């Protein structure tokens, strides 16, 4: 069965894989690699570069925190996700269902960690301005105003027990904005169906260097460095 699958390869992807990888979008390259290799999970993930310098978000978040958070914590999730995916590939190739299921925790934790942090870096910026537009309108409609939204998101996010995340999200079944929290690295969309628009990391590593135990001060400060353009792009993308 495996042998016959390998022979039937999409010719366009085969052609695409032969083009120098720098010319290919990352997701096409990964799909091509998956087709042509024995790695059904699509090969290795990479730590994304930040769209700004480590010091860009000061004073809300220090360069020290950004350096540790990105180059250590997020990097570890990426490394361990790749390890888990390699194990998954072996288990799938061997048809070992028990081993596949046994990887559930590692995939959710490290895969979720990678997804969550990638979204997080993108929704932060030193250039933080909520302009008139569909996002502002949706917030005003749902929460009565931007302060109302911040108040709800902050309260729920600060109240997370232990490690986790706070999210402003879109419910695709109702078209409404929602506020949700998740424990540990549980990814929002995969576990609830809600589409993440804006994430706030409240694992202690996200704020301990700068704020020690005072999580509310961190959450208040992070509103100053939200990339509202990205949040709006996500809203528009989710509404398609």
């Amino acid at each position: 069965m495996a042998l016959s699958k390998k022979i039937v390869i999409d010719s366009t992807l085969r052609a695409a894989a032969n083009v120098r990888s720098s010319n290919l979008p990352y997701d096409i390259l990964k799909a091509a690699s998956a087709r042509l290799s024995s790695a059904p999970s699509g090969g290795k993930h990479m730590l994304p570069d930040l769209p700004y310098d480590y010091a860009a978000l000061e004073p809300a978040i220090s360069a020290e925190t950004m350096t540790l958070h990105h180059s250590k914590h997020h990097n570890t999730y990426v490394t361990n996700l790749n390890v888990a995916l390699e194990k998954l590939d072996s288990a799938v190739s061997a048809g070992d269902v028990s081993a596949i299921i046994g990887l559930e925790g590692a995939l959710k934790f490290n895969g979720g960690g990678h997804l969550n942090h990638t979204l997080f870096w993108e929704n932060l910026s030193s250039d933080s301005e909520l302009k008139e537009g569909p996002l502002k309108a949706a917030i005003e409609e749902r929460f009565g105003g931007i302060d109302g939204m911040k108040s709800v998101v902050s309260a729920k996010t600060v109240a997370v027990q232990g490690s986790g995340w706070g999210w402003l999200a879109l419910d695709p079944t109702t078209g409404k904005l929602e506020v949700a929290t998740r424990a540990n690295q549980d990814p929002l969309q995969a576990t609830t169906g809600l589409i993440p628009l804006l994430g706030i990391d409240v694992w202690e590593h996200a704020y301990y260097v700068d704020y020690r135990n005072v999580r509310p001060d961190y959450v208040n400060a992070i509103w100053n460095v939200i990339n509202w353009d990205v949040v709006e792009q996500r809203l528009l993308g989710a509404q398609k």
Partner: protein
Amino acid sequence: YAFDALEPYIDTPTMKIHHDKHHATYVANINKATEGKDEVPILDLMANALEATPVRNSGGGHYNHAFFWELMAPHDKASKTKPSSKLMAMIDKSFGSFDEMKAKFEAQAAPGAVFGSGWVWVCVNLAGDELKIVGTPNQDNPLMKGVADEVMLPILGLDVWEHAYYLKYQNRRPEYVSNWWNVVNWDKVNENFDYVVANHVGVNVKG
């Protein structure tokens, strides 16, 4: 002991903030949650803690930290202590050897085992004839019905919330865990062990 007593294994600022801020907040919150009710020792609140979220989070937080401070001591004192022969016998029976117990504990304390915030415990079962190592999330502990497969009685515990080690170790949790053994006061652990085996209930804590 003083805030600097566990240096260099656990740093002074961590001890100060961990005790004066984190633990103090749990105490304040459990007092708020139990206001107006009869005074009950914190140990007695643990059994049914899952029935009330503030008791689970803040009561658990208070018990766990009060338990934790007591089982540590400055290295020059701690290094002179060791498991009693009775405890060693049960360690050997349950894990094979002390080193195997340590290895199992460290594996349970690793970032991939306790996925977020939590604690790692060495416990005696209710019958008093076996030791088990278990990880619990957030401020849960094995005394709480419904947390582990069965209620168990901790004799040794380690906080692996990031606040317990971040200032000195950042993301390097395994280094924190292996250094922590240097401040474990086995005299207190032995005392805990004798008590739970004899009484089949959890250890009492101050406050």
